[in-house]
């Protein structure tokens, strides 16, 4: 995919398969506008990402592109629920009850008041997944989103993600190590 031109269309389910160290996270961060140290261009709806100002970028992140980071990136000083609520309040797309329901579905009912830095990786990953689904989005970017989850929890998460993505009519781009059938991909790209 590097040094070529690739485009993804609205509603596509894209799987980026790549072994460790070949640039999955770099790709996700680049697409999300966190990195600018590259040659070439990344465009969202024909808007060049590199020259987009931070204000517009924040707007895109709040209402257009959502992400599940590989390293979760929760606020360690906030509880699990506060981590959810701080994102939920930004757009109020999802009600408080709905957000609670999603946490419950992913088995975090008893962890809502635990501080971010006391949660296990698996719990953090599930909170990060719910957080990514609380906003309106056209694309959901996922960087090894189930790497810390057992099969049962991964399946619950996959089910929730599939449901919300479908509901929003959005596309997804999932980067992972091995081939999988988590979602009905429309395009697979190998790095």
């Amino acid at each position, binding site marked *: 995919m590097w040094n070529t031109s690739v485009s993804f269309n609205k509603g596509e389910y894209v799987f980026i398969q790549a072994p460790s160290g070949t640039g999955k996270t770099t790709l996700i961060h680049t697409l999300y506008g966190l990195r600018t140290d590259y040659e070439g261009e990344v465009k969202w709806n024909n808007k060049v990402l590199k020259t987009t100002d931070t*204000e517009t970028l*924040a707007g895109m992140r709040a209402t257009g592109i959502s992400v599940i980071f590989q390293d979760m990136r929760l606020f360690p*000083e906030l509880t699990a629920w*506060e981590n959810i*609520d701080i994102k939920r309040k*930004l757009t109020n797309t999802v009600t408080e009850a709905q957000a609670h329901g999603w946490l419950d579905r992913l088995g975090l009912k008893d962890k809502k008041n635990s501080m971010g830095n006391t949660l296990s990786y698996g719990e953090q990953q599930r909170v990060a997944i719910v*957080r990514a689904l609380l*906003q309106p989005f056209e694309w959901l970017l996922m960087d090894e989103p189930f790497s810390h989850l057992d099969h049962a929890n991964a399946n619950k998460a996959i089910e929730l993600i599939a449901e919300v993505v479908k509901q929003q009519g959005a596309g997804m781009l999932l980067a992972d190590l091995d081939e999988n059938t988590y979602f009905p991909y429309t395009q697979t790209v190998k790095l």
Partner: protein
Amino acid sequence: MLKKLLMRTQHSSRLWAALAALCIGTTLLLLSVMIWWNFSELLYGKNQNDTLGSTFLVIGKRVTEHNMGVANATVFQQADIDSLRSAPQVQEVGVITSNHFPVYAMMGGNLPLATDLPLECVPDKFIDNMPEDWQWQPGNRSLPIIVSSQFLDIYNYVFAPSQGLPQLSETSVKMIALNLKVGEGDKAEMFSAHVVGFSDRIGSVLVPQSFIDYGNKVHGKPGVSEAPSQLIIKAKDPSDVKFGNYLKTHDYATNSQNLRWSKIRAIVQVVTSATGVLALLLMGIGTLVFILFIELTIARAQHSLTLLLQVGYGPRYLSKFMIMRFLPMVLGTVIVSMIITIVAQFVASGIVKDQGLVLPSLPGWPVWAALAVSTSILVLLVTKSISGAIKKH
């Protein structure tokens, strides 16, 4: 939650120190402007503050060994007056006209005082404490006079005690009638003079201009020069060296006591300027520490800030959030300073009122202007530092 993430250093002692410095700096700035403005108001304001007649000087040509006895050597010609009008610091020049007719004054009542009396008149605008009945027309037997406050002092503290006479208050002097014999021989006229006021500006006896004009015309000695030998001038700043030099080069004499207030004013100006500079320094330090505190707060919240931007919070939203937290602190200090200044002005106007001076009970426009400018600069600096620091992420 944003507060929890971003405002982790709110109750630091450094913050309180910065706010205290800001508050003291702003207060000092406002007070120095207030003092400066009050003093200008006392000297040049619309209100009559007659005891501050420092800027009114009576000048005459110095009498020396060379010019004494020389006719008309110490009178002012029109050219002298014109030159004086354009002299440094001079705002107005008035002619002091004196009597060229004999006046003999006799005290009424039991006071055995009788003397030749020199009379003078000045344009009305040079009279401090203008009395209501300051007018005379030919035919009037009653004559209002204004005497120098120094006369009463000399009588009360020097003459009366030594002669075993009663001391007199201003009010009692106003009640005494003074018989004036004007002119000589058959043409002599008698007038009943009464003191209607006291002046700090002029060291003689003043009568209305119409009386001097009448007396000089009817009883005046022929051949006496009409040119004035004394002038009264209103000087903006008599302590100005250029003004002093002008008087010196032209060999004009004035009462150096009159410069007393000017010297005090010069001192006040130095003190207010020094306070102003100190105030600006304090404000500068206060602002600097406050801004450093803001930047420290933002630096401590760097991780949260980065993450907030990553989950979709906009820099403008976050800046606004921080500004709304810090600005009330700044405005709080400004309000405290404002209240102190208003109270100080109120107290100052009360104090000077006891001394017969008039000052407004609320601070004047320069104080509000200083407040507006300093607050705007402060708000601008705080806003800019917050948006600048957040933009760096």
